[in-house]
């Protein structure tokens, strides 16, 4: 029998999934989060955002907002935070909606979007008032539970909403308040939201700014080697990145089981990885951050190349990280997804 305290890599019994000859391994490979690009990794940026949100919930702030570049992982961040927040606030219900852009944004379209994202079965029928009441009833019925006095609403792509939409959200928030409940809205948006904020400021819509957009935070990408180490640690830690569920196998161990058993960790590759990103960005001007889209893509490429080698593919003589980062498309994204000098301050 193995000692439970002993590191997994040193244990004598090897999970069959990790055996090269295992038939199930290839099948699991096809559904692996790393392969399907669904790996939810708590990056340092997510941890910073989570702390900000947690403070807002505790202090019952009406709302917080975060802006970030596209493909930096805001949507994944919402998913991760939605899953982690109930551990701190089990009595607070959470809804997550995605703001949609409409040619003609109307009251009905807003409530339909909200109802649909809140999983209500009757989202597209009835008058605007009926849809509004339906939505409010749903929220009130959800929040009405012992100890519950707050409802958290994550709004992704919040830059799609205009002044009217925010005004209607304010009214819903007020109705909730009339019933004794606080609606806490957490907006994730592209930098375009800042222009909406600016126009609200010019219109002196302090009611909306004070409620939703008082201090927009910055959702950043990996910008230092230590960020890369933190991310890669998560790939090594089965407590965070476990697949299949219950197997106690981390992402990196699944792809490189023999190396992992030999003491290798992905975290050790952080320096090479970051150097590859720097080399890739070196040809460009300005200060850049690495969004999670490219970071996870580079890691996936790296792990996949190693996987191929393990399965008999000839070892590539070149730098694996350079190949992986290059294949991630990071270089193409520069000057496209983020402006050359674009940076913000993390909230």
């Amino acid at each position, binding site marked *: 029998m193995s000692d439970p305290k002993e590191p997994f890599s040193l244990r004598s019994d090897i999970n069959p999934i990790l055996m090269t000859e295992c038939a199930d391994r290839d099948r699991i490979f096809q559904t692996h989060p790393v392969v399907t690009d669904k790996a939810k990794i708590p990056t340092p940026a997510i941890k910073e955002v989570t702390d900000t949100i*947690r*403070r807002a*919930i*505790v*202090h019952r702030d009406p709302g917080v907002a975060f802006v970030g570049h596209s493909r930096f992982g805001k949507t994944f961040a919402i998913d991760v935070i939605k*899953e*982690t927040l*109930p*551990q*701190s*606030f*089990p*009595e*607070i*219900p*959470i*809804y997550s909606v995605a703001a949609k852009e409409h040619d003609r944004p109307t009251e009905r379209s807003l409530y339909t979007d909200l109802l649909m994202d*809140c*999983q*209500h*079965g*009757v989202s597209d*029928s*009835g008058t605007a008032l*009926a*849809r509004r*009441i*339906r939505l409010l*009833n*749903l929220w*009130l*019925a*959800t929040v*009405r*539970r012992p100890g*519950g006095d707050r409802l958290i609403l994550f709004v992704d792509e919040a830059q799609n909403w205009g002044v009217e939409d925010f005004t209607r959200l304010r009214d819903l928030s007020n109705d909730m308040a009339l*019933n004794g409940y606080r609606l806490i809205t957490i907006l994730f948006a592209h930098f375009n939201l800042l222009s909406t904020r600016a126009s609200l400021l010019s219109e002196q819509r302090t009611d909306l700014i004070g409620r939703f957009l008082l201090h927009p935070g910055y959702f950043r990408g990996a910008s230092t080697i230590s960020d890369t180490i933190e991310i890669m640690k998560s790939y090594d830690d089965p407590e965070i990145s476990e697949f299949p569920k219950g197997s106690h196998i981390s992402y990196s161990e699944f792809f490189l089981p023999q190396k992992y058993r030999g003491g290798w960790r992905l975290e050790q590759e952080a320096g090479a990885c970051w150097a590859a990103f720097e080399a890739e960005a070196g040809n460009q001007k300005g200060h850049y951050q690495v969004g999670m889209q490219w970071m996870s893509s580079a890691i996936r490429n790296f792990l996949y190349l190693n996987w191929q080698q393990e399965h008999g593919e000839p070892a590539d003589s070149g730098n694996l990280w350079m190949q992986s980062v290059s294949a991630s498309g990071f270089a193409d994204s520069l000057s496209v997804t983020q402006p050359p000098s674009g940076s913000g301050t993390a909230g």
Partner: protein
Amino acid sequence: MVRESEEQIAKPRLGHRTVAEAPLVEGLLWNSEWLAPSEGPLTILWKIALANCLTPRELCRLLFGRNLLANDSNGSHGRTLLNPVWMMDEKAIPTSLGILVRQHALDMTSPQWVSALASDDHIRYCKACISGGYQSAFCQIDGLLTCPVHDLPLLQNCTLCGAPTPRYALNSLAMSSPYCCHSCGAPLGSNIWSPVEQGLSPEYNAVHSRYGEIERWLLALADLNVSWRHLASWQCASDAQNDSLERRISVFSVLRQLVVLQLADASFRSPRLPVSINAHYATPTSSKVGPEIQESTNELNARRTAYKAIRRHIRRLLKKRHRRCFQGLSNVLQIEWGTQMLHPIAPVCPLIFAYFLWRHHFEEDMALDSHLGATRSSTGLRKESLEWPLDWEVGLSAWCGFAVESFFAFAQVAKEWTDRVEQCPKPYAKENSSFLRQMLTEFSVPMTPRSLAWASRVTALKVQTARQKEKEVAIVVGPSGSLHKMLAQPNCAVDLHPETICFRGLAINVRLIAPTPDQELEFTMSDDAAEPQVRIAPLERLELPPHLDGHRLSNHGSYLEVLNAKNDVEAVKLWLENYADRPATYGDYRIVIERLINWAVIERGKPMSELDETALVAFDTFLANPLPTARWLCPRGTPRSDPNWKPFSGPMSQGSRIHSEDIIRLLFKWLNSMGYHTTYRVSHVINESSMVVTSSLKVSVDRTPTEIIRIDDWRYVVLALAEGECDPHHLYARLAVELMYYGNLKVSEVTRVSTSTLVSTPYATLLRVASRSSRDSTIYMLPPIVVSLSRLGIVATEATENPFDDSRRSDSVEYSERPLYRSSSEVRNLTKEIFQRASKLAQTEGDLAASARLTSCTCQSLRYAFELHAHDFDHDKWIWRLIGSTGLVPSTLRGYLHPRKELTEQEWQCALHDLAPCLNTPLSQLH
């Protein structure tokens, strides 16, 4: 600081992952906490509609995949909530919430009785329940009058605008404005349910679990295995419009007698036409082999014999009081040749009409025979009636019950006919009048055996208990009434008030045993009433179960109540303490109330305080003949401590019964004054039409000996007396009648009246009746007599001494000792003439019933009549002192009467003033 500590608490707790989920069921908002016990589908749908802001069309479509129905049709609604099989049929696409709604429909509890007990004509609701967002499916039971939770009436109208509630169905009208009137929009309750409200508390659910009593009752009924094949054709109302409703109420009433429903009697609606049930063991179904055919023949012969016996019995009873009604029968009734319809062609006694209608349905080729002796007509019975109920077999006993119930049913039909006819002036004047044609059309079914072989107001059901599966019980249900009482009425009126049918030797009482703890029910059959569970005992040993001791009444303990009594027995004891210093009165009152309480709980199955006026009248009847004897009677002198003590030693006289009524009235009056709730309220109501002051416990004519003239009939006699005042013969007749009425004299005493027996005082005239004892030998001549005496020129002797001093009586016998009347027969003949005149007057005024009664009146009818009538006016306190009459005073109490003394002038004037309404003389003429 608080926030900081909360922040610390808010640190992630690994291993405890709770994802807050929306209360959505297949995309629709629903919280299981909104559902209360026994809640019906209506409010569940309303809650879903309100929470999700759905239109009726969306609601129907989303929950069941069905469309609304545009048109309502007669009968059950296509989207009914009562028996909503449409929710789960092959066209439906039920959802989880749809299944939830379906599971709470009434038919899920009782598929057999749902249509027989409830309807979807209107939403029925309790105002308090609906304020909490609640309506039980059991509210749709028409026999339920009040909400068992709040004791409030179940409504089917908006209390604001009066608009009837929509149908109990998933339709546009009912679902468009949940919890509100569809007409005026006002809330049906005090507020409208909202999904924002908290879930229902355990206390709320506990209260509403009282509807569970009805659910348990329906489940117990299902265990009983009742088969009621002809239920749909059972007629329970004279008009077709209300027949369905009345049938549901009647069915509920019958089923409640089969299985006890543990709710207060005030919660139930009584059928307009009361029904009674008779239970009999059904004979086992026989196979068609030789010996059984023989048995079947014997059974039919036995039925023929039994029918003859019943017919003979009814005829004899009719002979006693309706001999004259048989005369000229062929001029009154007619059987049409083609349709075989038996109908009157002239005013007819309803009982005679009923008798022949009944016979017409049972006998083939019945002749309208006015012969009152043994009937010579054949007793060839109609096959359908003889083999009733055709599709299953019942024993002879049940068939006899059917025959008797049929008579009551036809009596109802006959009474309805005569009542309708009375509304039309000269209905039979023109043979083919439109009125008569309409009547014949309406009554065509019950008046001819061709349409329906037997009375549709009689039905039967078969019951098989879970315990005694081998024994089937046939229960015959029909109109309630008392055959003896009905036929004994001389006024040709049919009285069908609630009474158990007491047709001895034929009907077998059904004993209903309250559910035992394991809810087992059983029937026992007995010729005598079964021994009840509560033991008869004197007041000090009386132990009553909680549902019979009166403590459950809702308004006990109200702010009005000043009496510190938890139940009826305690209240009675407190009342009796008022008489603790008078042992005789105390004992007298105690035994009366003991009888009442014991009778109430044992014979009526309800607490004394829940007795109503009808029950108290029935109690009076019971006092006259307390049966069964084994239960109620014990030898006189049995000590109260004896376990075999009973409250009666024999039947009670009329006087004793009246005395008992006074005591009961006294008790109820006291209880009411102390704020103790009783169903019966002592009240005096003046009937303006007849100027008769009646109390709820008045000595009604139904209960007094028929010999005593009614106060209404006396009015005709007074009119007859007023005629021919110049004719001495008439004046003597008048005097005789008045002496017997106002003076309470016997015929023999009237014949001895002479001028010498009359004594005049300064303010009154007295009469000495030599044949009486000294105590009551002197009576005051009331003004009507004095007027008659003066008209005849008869002058009284002057009183020189105290007329009440009997030792001096010989001194006044001087003037003339010649009697005013020659013989008793002269007095009787004169009296008869007056009655005949009065009868004609009544006939002239169209009061045929009074005319018939007056025809049969004799001198004996006047005896105690004045005292009785004065009692009705509550002025009988002077009677003893004025005329010494004690007819209404129990013999046991007569010894306690105060000695009679001469009235002072002031007392005399006071007596005249009080008695003025009874003297038929204006007050101004009395002095």
